[in-house]
């Protein structure tokens, strides 16, 4: 059970990354390579606030959300909006990701930093397994996040507008949706979210400059399993990836963890390329 808790918590982190990809994808049909890096920045900011400056936890959360949201806004303006050929967005957002990796390495060095968690480190016994408070919190937050986003997308006007944009940008524009502003807004919201979640993720994964790349890949696998655009899918996908990784590391050895996830990704892409939760769409000429 301890193993399962650990795997689920890791999976929750991946699901959070995938949710971020999804928000941007739904709003603008683009893929933000740098989303996991945004979350990594959140973790680093949490470290600086809590350890270096000794700020209260709520302030750290606020700071991470604001700063990372601002970084996301800058990224949208520099790496997404001016790009005419949408194909190049992969390149420019990868550039943004690399810049954040480099900046993190310059500012915080390349050693993993331990980020403290508000509820302490004492492991609890739940359902016959040992679990740290941060792990329980991560699982809870991921589930809550997906629930809230599903509700927003079904019930609120902005959610419907986003779904409409995902379906057909031009049609949404004709219905009076300000497509550009909404896409920008969604991007920034995804950034703020990444910053906030980074504060929770840091205590589980440590804050380290290579965190972004690892999270980006695993988050993508979660997205591929769940299917692009499906919020519940990301949760299931993320948890599956986390569990698979935990089990592989435990029973096969640490160097097999990533390999196992890769094999799952390949299998999903070969068997069900649209993901488990999205119906395959036919091509339109």
């Amino acid at each position, binding site marked *: 059970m301890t193993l399962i808790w650990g795997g689920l918590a890791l999976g929750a982190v991946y699901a959070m990354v995938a949710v971020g990809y999804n928000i941007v994808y739904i709003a603008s049909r683009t893929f933000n390579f740098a989303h996991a890096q945004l979350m990594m920045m959140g973790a680093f900011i949490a470290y600086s606030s809590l350890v270096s400056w000794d700020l209260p936890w709520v302030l750290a959360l606020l700071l991470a959300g604001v700063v990372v949201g601002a970084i996301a806004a800058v990224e949208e303006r520099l790496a997404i909006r001016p790009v005419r050929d949408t194909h190049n967005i992969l390149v420019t957002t990868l550039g943004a*990701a690399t810049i954040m990796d*480099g900046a993190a390495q310059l500012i915080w060095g390349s050693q993993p930093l331990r980020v403290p968690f508000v509820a302490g480190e004492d492991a609890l016994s739940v359902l016959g397994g040992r679990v740290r408070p941060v792990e329980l919190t991560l699982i809870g937050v991921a589930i809550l996040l997906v629930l809230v986003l599903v509700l927003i997308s079904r019930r609120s006007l902005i959610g419907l507008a986003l779904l409409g944009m995902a379906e057909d940008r031009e049609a949404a524009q004709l219905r009076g949706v300000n497509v550009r502003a909404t896409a920008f807004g969604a991007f920034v919201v995804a950034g703020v979210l990444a910053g906030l979640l980074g504060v929770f993720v840091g205590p589980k994964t440590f804050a380290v400059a290579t965190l972004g790349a690892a999270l980006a890949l695993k988050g993508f696998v979660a997205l591929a399993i769940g299917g692009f655009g499906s919020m519940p899918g990301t949760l299931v996908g993320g948890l599956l990836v986390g569990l698979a990784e935990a089990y592989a590391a435990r029973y096969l050895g640490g160097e*097999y963890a*990533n390999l196992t996830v890769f094999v799952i990704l390949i299998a999903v892409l070969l068997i069900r390329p649209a993901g488990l939760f999205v119906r395959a769409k036919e091509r339109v000429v």
Partner: protein
Amino acid sequence: MVNRMSADRLRSLPLWTVPLALGVLVVFLPRFVSDFSVIRQVQLALILALLVSGLNLSLGYAGELALGQTAMYAGGAYAAGLLSRHGHTEILLQLLVAVAAALVIGVVSGVPGLRLGSWSLAMTSFFLVFLVGDVLAIFNSETGGRNGLSGIASPTLFGGMLAPNDYFALIAVVTLLWFVVMRNIVVSRHGNAFLVLKQSPVLAASMGISVFRMKLMAYALGAVPAGLAGVLFANLDLYVSPDQFTFSTATTILAASILGGSASVYGAVVGAFILQFGLNQSSDYQRYSLLVTGVFLLIGGVLLTGGLAGLARDLSRRFVLRPARTPAADGSAEIRIPPVPGRVLRVEGVSKAFGGNRALSDVDLLAHPGRITALIGPNGSGKTTLLNMVCGFYRTDSGAIRLDDRELHRLGPDRVARAGITRTFQTPNIPAGITVLEAVTAGRFTAHRATVLESALRLPRYRRLRREDVAEAERVLGAVGISNLRDSRADSLPLGQRRLLEVARCLIRDPAVLLLDEVASGLDEHEVERLAAVIRGVRDAGGTVLLVEHNFQLVLALADEIVALARGQVMAHGTPAEIENNPRVLSEYLGIDPDEQADGAAVLADLVTEAGGDR
């Protein structure tokens, strides 16, 4: 005077002589430069250039961002290192094995990644880089794991040892040879097909090109230089370790590619040299390397769409090359269509629903050789859906589509196209930056195949096919009466001529069926007449023509048989005279039916404007 003559002579030399001469010069570089650090930088830059050129094949020519070069590079390097440790120091053997190893990595990672394209390939290939360290750790005893593989013996060539200068020459020669091969692939029928693919996958498929196979080919071909680079690198330092094959290697390759221009052959060399020389000079480079490559990617992606090669191309077009003349359209050219082997197209009881929306129900249609069959109907009546189903872009829910007796409705679009269905597009779909002749020859890519190897080495079969391509293209251009445009830029022609070009591109494939999608829209009276003459010519030459058209007058004048669709069903079919007087067609088109008022009104408006335009 003498100067002028020699300048003219220089200008008449083919363009590829310049890079070839430069390449040969680099081979002998150690004779002129003795500075060790410079020599080493050049070696590393050449190796980087190999890697970048591999990426260019997939990113620049197939349009897919793939970052797996680093993994293939590692595969090549470790293959060479392990061979060497087992006593096989012969470098040619190592190069061969390493290319094979890199190809395996390329195909294995490319097949699943390319299924979804774009992000999937980028991510799976990126993941591959992530795995390099883990895989090496799993085979710890052989590879030395994280500590790296040491004890690689010096390489030999045909059994003889290689002095440092000889090894430099070897690197330069291998790189040079690869670039010759790469250039030959890019400037070939394959290169032409890549341009079609880049223009639009839909276009590629409807010309019979398998999008998936083409992309896989580009990505896997990119493994070849990566494998070569791996061997050259392993034998340079006689030591390899996982630290040399990381994300930052992958991003450096990408940055060099973007900087040099991904869709270019020599841009790879320029980008590689700039990154290797420009950045490694500053002592702080290690600390700032990620930041700098990131900025390169960002700026490169936003500003330099064509990279430095694109800039150079623009400049040379402006100053060096004489502007291409666009000859005046020769309206009097006679239209003589050679025999077209038309076949019978049968659509039998086809239905299709999208979600709950029934787009087509139980539609029958028959198109015979030597006849023009027209498909008409108001907006939303299912014309385009039917067209896309015939072309294989949608699957039928029920019913059958046959060409003579061959079933088409289970085939993908590229196979349908290879079976003989050809089409034009409502908005002409023509690759950018190629001549009319090249655009038309691209139609022959799949029916008359040459292998990549034959193209790369310019073997006799390739040369023969190439000659036939040109002869056939001249024939069909003549047939539709635009021979005089053969060397003009295809995408800058006026609309009417682009439509004719599309028809020629279909004719070069000896089409069993010619589908024309809204072929008259946007044309003036003159152009419509000319196009109508070509269409009649195709019919008289035995072609099966299916005309999907809005222009009612044109359809009445051209068609031998008309099928009218309304709300996904065949409302009427018959000769133009029958259709013109069919009460249901009239009511549908004149908007009497209260349910269809909006559509009816739109069509009425169309009719009125078109009738006005015709008079």
